């Protein structure tokens, strides 16, 4: 049996406010649904991050290494120019989104930022590698026509046209 008579004027005022403002406890499913929504959004963000990773592998693998490297006197500059920046940026963005959404779940605050970020990166890389092996990297890269550096675009254009033939909406 709970003694509900605290005798406190503050308690009386709060109960009166609850009564007059018709405050009612929100249903549990609302909170559960919100929690699942954030976990799902976090998962979706990591999934998109993995798509970005699969496209990044594809771009790196088809950067025209054989044709460019022997002829180019500055291989480091070639690497710098052909690095898949857009995908790296997309990967970082989705990982940040994943972190931000998971952080908002009921116990998300307990995970250190480093652990969450590493977990999201590891998950994106693992899933992204699988997606690449399944051919999704090519699909994503060709459909979105990710921009390379200007010189790399020239080097790659012919090779790229063949790979993405009939896939890119921009060609």
């Amino acid at each position: 049996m709970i003694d509900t008579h605290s005798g406190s004027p503050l308690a009386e005022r709060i109960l009166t406010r609850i009564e007059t403002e018709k405050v009612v406890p929100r249903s549990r499913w609302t909170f559960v649904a919100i929690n699942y929504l954030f976990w799902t959004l976090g998962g979706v963000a990591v999934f998109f991050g993995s798509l970005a990773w699969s496209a990044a592998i594809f771009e790196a693998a088809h950067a025209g290494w054989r044709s460019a490297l022997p002829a180019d006197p500055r291989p480091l500059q070639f690497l710098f120019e052909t690095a898949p920046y857009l995908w790296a940026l997309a990967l970082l963005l989705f990982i940040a989104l994943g972190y931000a959404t998971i952080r908002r779940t009921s116990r998300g605050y307990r995970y250190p930022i480093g652990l969450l970020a590493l977990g999201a990166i590891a998950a994106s890389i693992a899933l992204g590698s699988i997606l690449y092996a399944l051919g999704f990297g090519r699909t994503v890269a060709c459909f979105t026509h990710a921009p390379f550096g200007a010189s790399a675009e020239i080097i790659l254009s012919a090779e790229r046209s063949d790979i993405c033939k009939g896939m890119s909406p921009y060609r």
Partner: protein
Amino acid sequence: MEESTDEQIVAETFSDKEAFAALIGRYEAKLTRYLERLGVATREDREDILQNAFIKTYRNLASFDQALSFSSWLYRIVHNEAMSFFRARRARPQVILDEAGETLIRELRDEEADTSAAAERRLGSEQLAEALGQLPPRYRDVLALRYFEDRSYAEMSDILEVPVGTVSTLIHRAKRALRALLPDPLTL
């Protein structure tokens, strides 16, 4: 008669809102003292914060995670309400300290590298309260929770909604900021 746990009262509140009065009665004094230590100077402001916090608690009772202690969850709501209060009002915080201030003073003294010099130094509660009032609210809060409310790092993590490692960092920074505000050498 065995006293009901907070969780039992929460369960009872869903069917009888009068039971909520028992929770309010149980925490009113503790939370008022916590707000005093945070620097909420007037009784009216403290009561407003508590009223709003308890109303939010009541409205969100179903979101109470049984993995936490009810006490930590309630402190979290009051903490959030107090931080909103400090953001909205630019009034200078006025920390009210009781004997609990001694714990923090002892902690600061114990950390002095030169113990012989530290023995000569004395710090009064008023000076400490004054210095605490000048700290950013977040730092004041972690010191209040740790040294005045005697909360563990795990509980503070649940109250402040940050990882345990961050709690430790915040305490360290808050103590450093506090030391910088205290007279050197510490004298009474």
